Each structure stands twice: as structure tokens, then as C-alpha cells.
């Protein structure tokens, strides 16, 4: 591969560096794609941190992403809220209108119908935070901002891919933290414990566990039912974990696979012109289409995670047997 190919790579909106890097041993689509959807390696974290109790707390790409997202959300939402609350006559304008719509619709159409009027104000903050956090993580993954940074690093600053520059250190790994099942498992763990806390708050600790199975059934039925319900307790968050992570990973793999066609065709025909031709006629429309689909998917997945968490918490509070 030549530098021409590398330039083409930046046109496709992804790391030029990896394409150029792959020039020596040929383009390996699988490797490139995995590199873009997985976390950066624990062996080369952004910030090295000591192991505590055998756990590596080093700041990898996805840790950085959740910090960036959390910081961004905190600043934007808190600042908008404070500006709004400071007003003498509280008239929501601009961004505040959207935020208010979000707060109200999550409270009134997600939390209220599931959790019930008694605990709606207890659980709305959790649902709001879950929704904005997941949505922001999902959306950030759709923006090729690190690819743009990489281009600036290579072609404006002229650093080599192997250099130890700050920009270079944050380029490795995917940007979608919610595509990593460790992250989604952590969020689902929050859901898991929220269900227990909700049930305990509503019925007391013992009653909550008794509520897992309907009362007044024959003894042999319980022998079957109790293991099933205990399994269900863990299946719920597991399903949440896998649904979100798989959806986020899948969309990115689809986009990246299509983008890889540019380089595969260029390599097969040993001609940059063919690659560009395929890119313009086939790859670009497909990639744009799938990206549009992804915009829907990121919103739906954030909504589904929030909704299901509400439903599970509601089930622990309003027991119907």
C-alpha cells in the first residue's frame, strides 16, 4: 500500500494509520475491525495504574471514554439546570427545553407506568442517568473524532504511528464504551442491585425474597420454581449486558466491514483507482445508510435498557402473582 491508500483511508473516515501500518503485510480486515471495536490493550493503557487485589485499574480507552462522557454530561446538564434555576421567572429556553422534555418523558412514560406513583421520584434519577449515560456513550462511538485526531497527528504534526505522542496513545481501541460487555455488565449490575433495593424498600428484606415466587403453591412446584426464579434474577441483567454490547459492536462491525471493501478491492486489483471507485459507488452509500440506521439503534438501545430496568424494578415493587 502507498501513501495514496492511506489518504483514501482518511477519506473513509477511519484511521489512516492502521491502513498504512497494514501495508507491510497486506490489509487484514478482521484485525483492523477488531482493533476498532475492542478496548485498547491492557498492556498499553493510556495511564498505567497499579494492580489492586490482582485487578488492573489502568486507564484504557474505554475507561477514558466513560470519564469523558460522564464529565461532559455532568457539565452540560448541571450548567443548563443551574442557569435555568437561577432565573427569576423560570422560562425554559433552547437546550433546557430538550432536557425538560427528556426528564418529563422518562419520568411520566417510562418510570411512572412501571414503578408506580409511590416510588417514581426515587427511581427517576437513576433512569435518567442510565439513559443519558448510555445514549451519550453510544453516540460518541458514532463520531469519528479519534480518527480525525489521528489524521491531524499523522499528516499535520507528522508523527509516525509508533511515536509516543499523547494523541497516539489515545488512538488505539474503539470509542464506544458501551460496545464493551465489561461496561454493560457494570451497568446491568447497577440494575441488578437496584431491583433488590427497590424490592427491599417496598416490602422489606425478607418479603422481597419471598416475593420471588408466588405463595400458596404445592411443595414440588417450588422445587422447580425457586431455581428458575433465581436463574431469572441473573438472566435479566445478563440479557441487558449482551443486548447493549452486541448491538453496539454489531453496528460498528457492519460499518467497518463495508469500509474495508475499499482496501480489499484496491489490494485485489492492485489499483488505488478501483478502491476509490468501489468506495464512491458502493461503500459510501452503504456506510451512510448503516450509519443512519445506527443513529436509530443507539437511541433505541439506550431507551430499551432504561425501560427494562424500570420494568424489572417495577416488578420487584408491584408484585403480581
Amino acid at each position, binding site marked *: 500500500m502507498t501513501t495514496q491508500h492511506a489518504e483514501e483511508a482518511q477519506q473513509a473516515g477511519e484511521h489512516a494509520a492502521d491502513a498504512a501500518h497494514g501495508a507491510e503485510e497486506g490489509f487484514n480486515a478482521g484485525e483492523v475491525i477488531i482493533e476498532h471495536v475492542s478496548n485498547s490493550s491492557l498492556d498499553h493503557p493510556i495511564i498505567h495504574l497499579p494492580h489492586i487485589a490482582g485487578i488492573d*485499574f489502568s486507564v484504557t480507552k474505554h475507561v477514558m471514554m466513560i470519564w469523558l462522557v460522564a464529565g461532559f454530561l455532568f457539565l452540560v446538564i448541571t450548567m443548563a439546570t*443551574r442557569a435555568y434555576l437561577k432565573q427569576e421567572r423560570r422560562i425554559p429556553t433552547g437546550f433546557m427545553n430538550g432536557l425538560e422534555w427528556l426528564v418529563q418523558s422518562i419520568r411520566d412514560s417510562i418510570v411512572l407506568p412501571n414503578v408506580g406513583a409511590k416510588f417514581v421520584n426515587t427511581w*427517576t434519577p437513576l433512569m435518567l*442517568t442510565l439513559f443519558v449515560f448510555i445514549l451519550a456513550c453510544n453516540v460518541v462511538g458514532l463520531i469519528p473524532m479519534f480518527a480525525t485526531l489521528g489524521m491531524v497527528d499523522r499528516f499535520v504534526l507528522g508523527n509516525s504511528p509508533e511515536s509516543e505522542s499523547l494523541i497516539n496513545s489515545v488512538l488505539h481501541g474503539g470509542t464506544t464504551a458501551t460496545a464493551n460487555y*465489561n461496561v454493560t455488565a457494570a451497568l446491568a449490575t447497577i440494575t441488578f442491585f437496584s431491583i433488590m433495593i427497590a424490592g427491599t424498600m417496598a416490602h422489606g428484606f425478607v418479603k422481597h425474597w419471598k416475593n420471588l415466587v408466588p405463595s400458596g403453591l404445592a411443595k414440588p412446584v417450588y422445587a422447580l420454581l425457586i431455581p428458575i426464579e433465581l436463574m431469572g434474577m441473573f438472566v435479566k441483567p445478563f440479557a441487558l449486558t449482551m443486548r447493549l454490547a452486541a448491538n453496539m459492536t454489531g453496528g460498528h462491525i457492519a460499518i467497518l466491514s463495508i469500509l474495508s471493501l475499499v482496501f480489499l478491492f484496491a489490494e485485489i486489483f492492485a489499483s488505488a483507482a478501483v478502491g476509490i471507485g468501489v468506495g464512491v459507488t458502493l461503500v459510501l452509500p452503504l456506510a451512510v445508510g448503516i450509519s443512519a440506521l445506527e443513529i436509530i439503534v443507539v437511541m433505541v438501545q439506550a431507551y430499551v435498557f432504561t425501560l427494562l430496568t424500570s420494568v424489572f424494578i417495577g416488578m420487584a415493587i408491584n408484585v403480581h402473582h
Partner: protein
Amino acid sequence: MDNPLVQPDPGLFIWTILTFLILLGLLAKFAWAPLLKALDERQATIRKSLDDADAAQQELAQLQEKSAQLIAEARAEGQSIVAKSRAAAEVVREDLHQKAKTEAAAMVQAAERQIQQETARAIQQIRHEVVDLSLSVASKLIKKNLTAEDNDALIQDSLIQIDASRPS
């Protein structure tokens, strides 16, 4: 497991939980709780102002009704005052009329009486003059022709005639 897609990463797991819980705490304290409160407050404010507007409208309607009633009352009162004064004026007019009538009647009566008196006096005067005239004429005639007996008889006749012709 070599596949980085399914690489367990407890560090990331714990970081995510910590980050999320901190974000949840901060946002709940600084954004969600005040926002939810503000939303409820505004809902209450809107409900209250709508209620107030309704109440004000009702009050306005009541006031309008009351003022219409007052206007009607005032009009009725004015009409009754006019009617009353008209009646009073009628009474006064009738009174004056009556007085004038009796006065006029009294005046006419007085005039009639005076006329009668004057007439009676005039007749008396005329009678005296007629007697005097007759006497002088008679005496002139008698001086020439009659005797003393004839004279007496003539006087008696004349007196009887005059008495007969006197209006009763």
C-alpha cells in the same frame, strides 16, 4: 481468551460502576432533583394560575351581573321619582285650578249682588221721579179743570196704578 471482544476486564468493570455511581450522585443532587422539583412546582403554578384566571372570570361575571342589576334598579327608581313628581304636580295644578274657580265664582256673585243693588236703587229713584213728574203734570192740569173732589180721586187712582205696575 484471545478475542479482545470478550476479554474480561474487571478494572474497567469497577471503573464503570464507580463512574456511573458518582455521575448518578452528582446529577441527582445538582440536576435531576432540582429539575423534578421545578417541574412539579411549575405544574402547580400553571394549575394555580389557570384556577385564578377561572376565579377572576367568574368574579367578573358576577360583578357584571351586579352592575346590570344596579343600573336596572337606578332606572326603576328614576322612573318612580318622575312618576311621583308628575303626580304631585298634578295635585298642585288641580288645587290651583279649584281655587281659581271658587275665587272667580265669588267674584261673579259679588258683582251680581252689586248689580242687583244698583238696579233696585235705580228703580226706586226712577219711581220717585215718575211720581214727582206725574204730580207736577197733574197739578198743572187740575188747577185748570178739576175740583177738589176730582183731585183726590185722581191721586188715589194714580197711586193704585203705580202700585199695580210696580214689579213685585
